[in-house]
């Protein structure tokens, strides 16, 4: 298991990979992926979620659903660092024939469970995946009874897993999200945890100008969700929140991750203009230099 310091270093490398991927691709999103690098590192490498590239088809593996799939560069880079895909594949992002499509999809048996892109869809998929685990448990009881009664030979897959869904804050403008939150709340779906990337920007500007979301915590509570707020760049806090979410007895959990969009690259931080564009050659050079310097700091602190 990696220490928090080691995870921080990996997150920094993931950020550098994101810059390199976007530069090569010539299109794509910068701010969101950089802002979510720490959450993705904690999720895939922090040891709380049951994720293992050698067990991609294990019925008991935890499921990850990326709902705001435009931030997929961070998913791809994390999958490379976790051993799901070869690292050299990262430079094929958005190219013809590449498994690394502009928005992530589930066609390539590389650990990605769902297709995303149109916002609001991932949360519903995640609820379905979480409900499937619940149905398997309850139907097993039903099945056993049925078998006793009439020796029927029904076959059903046993499984026990947690579902982790990642969403953006701008995404919450979609009505479908709230339809989904209502259902998860009604069903006390403790098998589900949602991360919200609360970075306060969306394409056209700051979220509170485009479509105000606050009081977000109160909204989730009103929908029967358990709410945890964390600093989305503090890996220990994120891991603690995940442990807490997994132990919930009756509610779905939302972890509101307060993040800085473009985190780690000074000229991108908190700028909504960087939501949907990649760096050019010059900008990438500066960004990589900054990240390497920061990486050096993390490394020396660790020593």
């Amino acid at each position: 298991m990696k220490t928090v310091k080691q995870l921080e270093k990996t997150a920094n490398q993931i950020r550098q990979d994101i810059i390199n991927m976007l530069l090569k691709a010539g299109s794509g999103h910068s701010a969101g992926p950089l802002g979510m690098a720490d959450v993705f590192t904690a999720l895939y490498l922090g040891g709380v979620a049951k994720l293992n590239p050698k067990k991609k088809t294990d019925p008991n593996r935890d499921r990850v659903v990326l709902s705001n799939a435009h931030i997929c560069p961070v998913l791809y880079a994390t999958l490379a660092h976790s051993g799901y895909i070869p690292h050299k594949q990262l430079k094929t992002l958005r190219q013809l024939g590449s498994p690394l499509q502009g928005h992530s999809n589930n066609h390539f048996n590389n650990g990605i469970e769902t297709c995303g892109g149109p916002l609001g869809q991932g949360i519903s998929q995640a609820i379905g995946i979480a409900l499937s685990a619940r149905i398997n448990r309850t139907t097993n009881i039903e099945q056993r009874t049925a078998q006793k009664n009439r020796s029927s030979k029904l076959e059903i897959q046993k499984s026990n897993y947690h579902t982790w869904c990642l969403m953006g804050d701008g995404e919450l403008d979609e009505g479908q999200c709230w339809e989904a939150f209502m259902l998860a709340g009604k069903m006390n779906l403790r098998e589900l945890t949602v991360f919200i990337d609360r970075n306060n920007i969306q394409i056209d500007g700051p979220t509170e100008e485009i479509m105000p979301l606050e009081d977000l915590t109160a909204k989730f509570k009103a929908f029967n969700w358990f709410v945890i707020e964390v600093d989305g760049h503090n890996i220990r806090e994120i891991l603690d929140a995940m442990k807490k979410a997994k132990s919930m007895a009756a509610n779905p959990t939302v972890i509101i991750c307060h993040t800085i969009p473009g985190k780690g690259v000074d000229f991108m931080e908190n700028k909504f203009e960087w939501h949907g564009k990649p760096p050019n050659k010059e900008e990438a050079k500066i960004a990589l230099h900054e990240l390497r310097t920061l990486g050096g700091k993390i490394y020396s602190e660790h020593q």
Partner: protein
Amino acid sequence: MKAYLNPFLLYKTVEKIPTRNGYGDALVELGENNPNVVVLTADLAESTRALKFGEAYPDRYIECGVAEQNMMGVAAGLAISGKIPFVSSYAVFSPGRSWDQLRVSVCYSKANVKIAGAHTGVSVGPDGATHQALEDLAITRVIPDIIVCAPCDAEETRKCTLAAAKHKGPIYFRFAREKTPVITTKNTPFEFGKAYVCREGYDVTLIACGPLLHEALLAAEELAKQHIEAEVINSHTIKPLDGKTIQTSLKKTACAVTIEEHQITGGLHGAVAEFCAQSYPVPIEPIGMPNHFGESGEPDELITKYGMRAKNIVKAAKKAIKRK
């Protein structure tokens, strides 16, 4: 008339059952035999006939509330994790409101979801235009990797539902609201993508889907009295269209009429016209909704007003024959 059809189907006293009943009966049958079948509804449990399943198998029944987009996505998630979900609502809402979710969460994601669209066609009646699905075949047919089906009666709907559970991949199928004539029997064949000839003829081919197949068969009887022998094909699967059966018929008849309770663009007429343009061009006359919304009224009144009666089919058949 083929022997495997209901022998009383041309009688005035023919038995009538709503097609959606076949869906409800099949779901209960599936629930018993397949523990992976899950049924979802969006506050329309009774009228989509999903309720019986819900009462028998509450653990595998999800009431989503009036939220069709979420319902479609939840179904996709269930399917991705090994379940066989049946999404039940009115077609105007699902796939009407949930088309993007059908496209991405279901079809693009290769999720094994079955979408049941109730209350299709003008024969929905008094509820009016907003609740009469006349575009559902068109909007589903254009999505890759989905089967689109319009069964003709309750028995065929039952078979379609059972077959849907066996097929791996998304399927959209539609029902009518009203009681409609029982055309098929337990012995009538059913297979997705396989149209069957209900009546043989050599002057004109009547290609129908859904309960209007009955009007097509009545029209064929009327035409026979006028010494015109019509071949009648039940093309219950609009996608993939059974081009082979249609072409074999057209080689004899050299003209066709398509019959559907749907806009004349994008549905069965669209599919047949596309096929013929590429493979076997012949004159084709459409019976269906002529680029118009429906309205409130009695189902029978509306079918008559919008020209979907046997007499309209007779007229269209003669027109098609003239254009040969």
